[in-house]
Structure formats: structure tokens, C-alpha cells
């Protein structure tokens, strides 16, 4: 969290800095099948986030000792490009934050992929954040779900993710970078929309039990819009 010295007013006249209502998503645009070599891929623009996801596999698990003779293993790499931030130059390669995000993202997709169909193999999910503006792990999961579907990998559901947060007394949806830096809570979630089950849940800041409930309900409500954008991206492949 940034210094409180120069904290901006995040809500003016009942609107957020970028003009959104509390429960409003940033503009979301997804395109599937954007990379030639990958089995499946997706490019996503979500507010100022720019995210590329690609899927390779199922292919032989390497090194061989990592293979599971009963099911496929999922590997995930979430990574931020050094030029993705507005004011900083990041380092290449995974840091501690990226390692944690890669782990929880992998666990999300282990839930929905029919792993038993591909024993001995691995499925690789690569998420590259080309430009970051808050909520990149949610954007990455939303893009990766489309890339997995594009790769023809059997899944029980098309997962989406988005974060809720709190600014003062207001519970808000889809927290952007400046809000995340100065907000009072941030809660990324990934949802399996058919069942409403929570596959990813992280949070830090401060939420009362009531605010937690409201945030979770906002994330479920937002699923209609996000899921539609994901499905439309997959349909559009066949219109070209």
C-alpha cells in the first residue's frame, strides 16, 4: 500500500475517479485465438490492463518425474512485463508475488479441467501482463479460461475472475490500480459461474462481515457480463 501522504480523493460526487459507479466494471474486450503456435490463446483488454494468455498441451509432462499416471498436471506461469507499469521498470522473471499468483491460478484451473482425461501429461498456462492497471490476476484468469477453451481442453465450466474492494464506506467492484494503492480493501475472486462456487479468494485490507458478503455478491452479479464477453470471444473465432 502506498504512502498516505498524497492520498487522492477516490470518490467524488458518488462516482469513482474514472467516472464509474460502485458496482460498475471497466470496459472489457476479449479476443480468442490470437497466437499461431499455442493450442489456445486469448488477448484481453480490461480498462487499461492488457493481457495475453496462451495454453500449450496436453503434452508429455517434463521432467518425467513430475508426471502423474492418473491425471494431467497443470502448470501456470503468471508474469508481468518489465514495461507493464506506469511509473516503474519491473524486473524480468518471476518474483514472490508472481509465484504466489501462479500457484493460486493453477489451483483454479485444476478444479475445472477434466484432468483424468489426460494421464501422464501436462497442460501449460502462460499469462503475460503486458500492461497493468490493477486486477491483473483476475484479468489473467479470465483470459486463461478463454485460452483453455480455445485449446479444446475439456472443462466443466468457463471460469471468470474479478475483484471487489472497499473505498471508505463503499464496497466497489473491479478495483483499478490507483484505487488498489489507496483503497481500504481488495478482494480478488474467481468463480465457476454454473455453480457459483468460489475457486479463488484472496483479500487484504479491512472488511466487516457485511461488507464481505456484499463484495462477494457483487462479484457473482458481475459474472453475467464477464462470462458473456468470454463466450462472445470464443464465438467470434468462427465468424472470421
Amino acid at each position: 500500500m502506498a504512502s498516505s501522504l498524497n492520498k487522492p480523493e477516490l470518490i467524488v460526487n458518488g462516482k469513482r475517479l474514472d467516472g464509474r459507479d460502485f458496482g460498475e466494471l471497466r470496459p472489457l474486450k476479449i479476443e480468442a485465438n490470437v497466437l499461431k503456435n499455442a493450442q489456445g490463446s486469448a488477448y484481453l483488454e480490461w480498462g487499461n490492463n492488457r493481457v495475453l494468455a496462451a495454453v500449450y498441451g496436453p503434452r508429455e509432462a517434463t521432467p518425467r518425474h513430475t508426471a502423474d499416471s492418473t491425471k494431467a498436471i497443470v502448470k501456470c506461469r503468471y508474469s508481468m512485463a518489465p514495461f507493464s507499469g506506469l511509473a516503474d521498470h519491473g524486473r524480468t522473471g518471476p518474483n514472490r508475488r508472481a509465484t504466489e499468483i501462479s500457484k493460486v491460478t493453477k489451483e483454479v484451473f485444476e478444479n475445472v479441467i477434466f484432468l483424468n482425461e489426460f494421464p501422464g501429461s501436462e497442460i501449460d498456462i502462460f499469462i503475460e501482463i503486458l500492461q497493468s492497471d490493477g486486477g491483473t490476476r483476475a484479468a489473467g484468469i479470465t483470459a486463461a479460461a478463454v485460452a483453455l477453451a480455445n485449446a479444446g481442453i475439456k472443462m466443466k465450466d468457463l471460469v471468470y475472475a474479478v475483484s471487489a474492494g472497499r473505498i471508505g464506506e463503499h464496497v466497489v467492484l473491479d478495483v483499478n490500480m490507483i484505487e488498489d494503492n489507496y483503497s481500504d480493501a481488495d478482494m480478488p475472486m474467481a468463480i465457476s459461474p454454473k455453480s457459483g462456487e468460489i475457486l479463488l479468494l484472496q483479500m487484504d485490507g479491512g472488511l466487516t462481515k457485511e461488507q464481505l458478503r456484499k463484495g462477494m455478491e457483487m462479484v457473482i452479479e458481475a459474472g453475467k457480463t464477464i462470462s458473456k464477453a468470454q463466450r462472445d470471444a470464443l464465438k467470434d473465432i468462427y465468424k472470421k
Partner: protein
Amino acid sequence: MGALEIIKSDYIRELVAKGERGDGRKDMDVRDIKITTGTIDHAEGSAQVDLGNTRVLAGAKIMVDDVHSDTPDQGNIVVSAELLPLASAEYESGPPSPEAIELARVVDRGIRAGNCIKLEDLFLGEGKAWTVYVDVYVLNYDGNLFDASTLAAMSAIMNARIPEYKDGVANYENRKEPLNITNVVSSATFAKIGNSILLDPSGEEESAMDARLTIATDGNVIRAMQKGLSGSFTIEEVDKLAGIALEKHQFYLKHIEKAKR
């Protein structure tokens, strides 16, 4: 998984489905907690926590660092965790595993989000500030490292004494003032096994669990959460578990206060 592990895991799942636990606990019972503070003299603060057979040791070192350019009026707190190879047959030497990194970051988030130490209080002036390094050493693994490590890290910073600071130099021979602890956070970790949910999972329960949820609170407000593994939780479950975590804080707080010195 070897055959023996699968049989063990199936046994736990059957037991839990009947509403029972291997050690006779009820679903929301926590194992015995023992906290010993000040065991490492060289560290500014330390605490060893036994949670059942899980044992972790946290050491706090307080060092002078340059301030970060984006937070010129603050110090910092950094939590790390090591899953030592002596703690379990499963752990190996080498760089920190994703599991160790996740553990450290979740403990860090709870303490940071809970404002347990006001980072402004660590500012020394002239571009210098204290960094509080909390290193969690897992000495024996028997499940629920998250709650044990939060108890240990919290107790270690409450046990810490700040070195005397004069003319840009820290004197570690002279440590008197405690850190200004402005909030106390505890965490409650739940394991979902089939359709059952258990607080404070043991090692064998963790080997059978589908999903894990850690909720850190200060008794009034939820400060941090982390879901782990490939299983899922419903909104209703999270809602209910948040209530339990908020209630359990008093219980953990009593143990922390009792060990404080």
C-alpha cells in the same frame, strides 16, 4: 501418492464424513497451543509456537534501511518463511517453494493489513527507517502452518525491543523500547474435506483436504483471506467461516497475551 497415503486419506475422509476427527476433536476445535517468547536472545524478538505437533519459530530482526522512494515517511515489515528440511520428510533443501512463499505472504498480509505496526512509527528521519524482518522457521510440520506462523510472527514482534539509534547507527547492545503494536491479528484456517469443514487441520487432515481457507481478523474486521488448493467454497460457507474466525480471535488473543513479555 503411494498406496499407504491413499488408504490414509480415504480413512480420514470416511471419518470426517461421519463427523469425527482422528484426534477426537470437534469440527471447530483448535489443538493445544503453547507460545514461548524471547527464546532467541540475538533476535530483537522471538517466539516459538506449538500447535499440536506443529512447531514454528519466528525471529524478528530490526535493521536500519534506506526508505523507499514511494514511501519516504515509512519503514517496512517483511515476513519470510522457510519450510526447513528437518521439519518433514516431504520438505527439501533449496530455494523457497511456492508453498513457503504463499505462507509468508499470507502471514505478511494479515499483519500488514491489520496495521499491527504503524509503518510511520518506524521512520527515523533523513531518509532512514527501521525494517522489521520476521522470519518464520517451520521446525516440525503437522498441519496448519498458517495459523501457527501468524501466532509466532505476531508474538515475535510483540516481544521485540528496538535497538538504540544514534547518529545513524543502531546499537544492538542496548535494546529497550518495544515496538508500538497498535493491533493484534490472528488467523483461522479451515480445511474442506468432502462436504465437511474443519478448523485447524492436522497434517493427516491436510493430506486429505480438497480446499483450504485462511481468514485473518482482529476480532472486529476481516484483515486478510487466502483460499488454497483446487477445491471450492460457496459464498454461504465463506460467510459462515468469516463469522467463526472473528469469534475465535478472542481465544487466540488470550494465548498471545499470556505469552507476552
